[in-house]
């Protein structure tokens, strides 16, 4: 019985096929497993090992190097508050402290109801909107303490479900072209897009 669902397995095999060497798919596959389970379960790592041709220990040893890969359960929402220099200069530690008080956990911990994991993060490359944070790797900038409370409330009542998928979901856009894809499909897409461009031209729009 496979732990990874048929859909995840299918996507995993497509990813493996993109690389000249299977092992290159190790990290993308860990992301897929996190998308399915919210974190990287040992059962998933075993299957990933089989798919990329290494041992489960090698998958764990590699995954543990990377901050985004969680080999322990995390909350539905991982809230990463950047405290690096540019954000620190604009109140990041005050924001983090407020977040700790508001959620009732310290950085690195998960709320008792399992909804939020709070992290003290390094620079997220959104320093122009400092202090900033990410929720499941979606950006929120210029965050005030009040703004943080609103954000938490919105997440709790599902108001941001469209913007912030559950933890682990990275790319929601699937690869649809490429030399590993059936040439007939690529041809069909080209014909369709040429058709669409012609359609736009007929309407006087620019293609």
């Amino acid at each position, binding site marked *: 019985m496979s732990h990874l669902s048929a859909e995840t397995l299918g996507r995993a095999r497509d990813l493996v096929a993109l690389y000249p060497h299977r092992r290159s798919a190790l990290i993308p596959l860990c992301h897929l497993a996190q998308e399915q389970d919210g974190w990287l379960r040992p059962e998933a790592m075993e299957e990933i090992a089989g798919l990329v041709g290494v041992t489960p220990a090698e998958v764990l040893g590699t995954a543990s190097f990377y901050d985004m890969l969680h080999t322990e359960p995390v909350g539905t929402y991982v809230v990463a508050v950047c405290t690096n*220099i*540019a954000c620190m200069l604009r109140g990041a530690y005050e924001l983090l402290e407020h977040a700790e008080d508001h959620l009732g956990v310290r950085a690195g911990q998960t709320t008792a109801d399992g909804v939020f994991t709070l992290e003290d993060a390094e620079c997220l490359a959104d320093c*122009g909107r400092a202090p900033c944070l990410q929720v499941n790797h979606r950006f929120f900038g210029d965050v005030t303490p009040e703004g943080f409370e609103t954000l938490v409330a919105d997440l709790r009542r599902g108001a941001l479900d469209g913007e912030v998928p559950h933890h682990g979901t990275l*790319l929601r856009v699937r690869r649809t072209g490429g030399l590993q894809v059936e040439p007939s499909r690529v041809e069909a897409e080209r014909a369709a897009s040429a058709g669409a461009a012609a359609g736009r031209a007929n309407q006087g729009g620019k293609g």
Partner: protein
Amino acid sequence: MVVSEAPRIVTSRIGFEDSHTLVRYLDTGGYTGLRKALTMTPEAVAAEVDGASLLGRGGAGFPAGRKWSMLRKGPIPYLVVNGDESEPATFKDHLLLEKDPHQLVEGVVIAAYALQVARVFIYIRGEFALGLERVQAALNEAYAQGAVGRDIFGSGFSVDIVVHPGAGAYICGEETALLESLEGKRGYPRIKPPYFPAAIGLYGEPTVVNNVETMSNLPWIITNGAAAFTALGEGRSTGTRLFALAGQVRNPGVYEVEMVKTTFRDLIYAPVLGGGVLHGRELKAVIPGGVSAPWIGPAQLDTPLGQDEVAALDTMLGSGSIVVMDETTCMVRAAWRITRFFWRESCGQCTPCREGSGWLEKILRRIEDGVGREADLDLLMDTCDNLAPGVSWPPQQTTICVLGPSIPSSIASAIRMFRDDFLVHIKEGGCPHG
């Protein structure tokens, strides 16, 4: 104050809401550079890039054309694009990935054609969920248009481009660590020589690694020619460059300015750029080039933003990040936070970096907490000396990669420029800034 009226080379579409779409891209001249390149020989395209003397925008500033020519003697299997952007306070590639992914794709195909590479990997920082989606969506559109894939625009040239997500590790921005990561391993930098992934790169094969902004310049260079590019800037620093301005400044953000024609002062104070220090306060220090770079003070603000001009101040333009710290900033805290970053991100392979970063962080922490001793200042400098003998610029290397020897930059800058800040902490038993 004069702000040069240079053309916008890589940010021309940023203002459009739909700047990331193919429709907008084609409406604004998209893919004409590639079409032109495909009518030229690969050698001619490479020569054009060499002629533009485009300096790499990832941090080291090595000319892209020269890097390519070192390799073009034999077949090159792989081109890898570095979109890992994690140097603190650097956020320009983030902008390009999200707002103009087609420009990146076009640049990449031009480079692939010049190098006759059949396989490209775009390694994007894992935290950039939207950037990853935008680049994949752009690639899907480009494949459908025939701008990537088999027989591009009927030229007979084919290339496949794969988007590869990272997973959160600063060190993977270092190109050999990036290649290890792309091979599905821990991001451990490789021992040098070889100095470039040229000879032994991805899967042990010759590989070119270039930054996202470097690639994004190529469509303009091919469309307008090398001469138009070298007409901008001065000396070795040609064209424009993106600067990520952050910290205590009124209008933080990414600005594209002509190289050398703009100074630190222009960038920070011009009303159309930084708009001055936040709350009208006095400027205390500036971190140019990312946190690996030594700091500069108010007296150096009239230095032009150019590779050699900034190198003359014993620091660097590096990753194109500029952090403004105002008079209220505690320099002990600033140095501590930067050191904490290096300690958390050291890959741990080399003892001076792994142990040194931890020591330095602890000592700075205790000074900030008011339990430091005056002897701690010498201890800090001694530990820095172990990481980069002489604590000079550019640093002497004792380790596998330059992360370790970069750690002393901020500590030595803070102590040399603001020794009194440290002494006050030690004498008064705490941080005067609260």
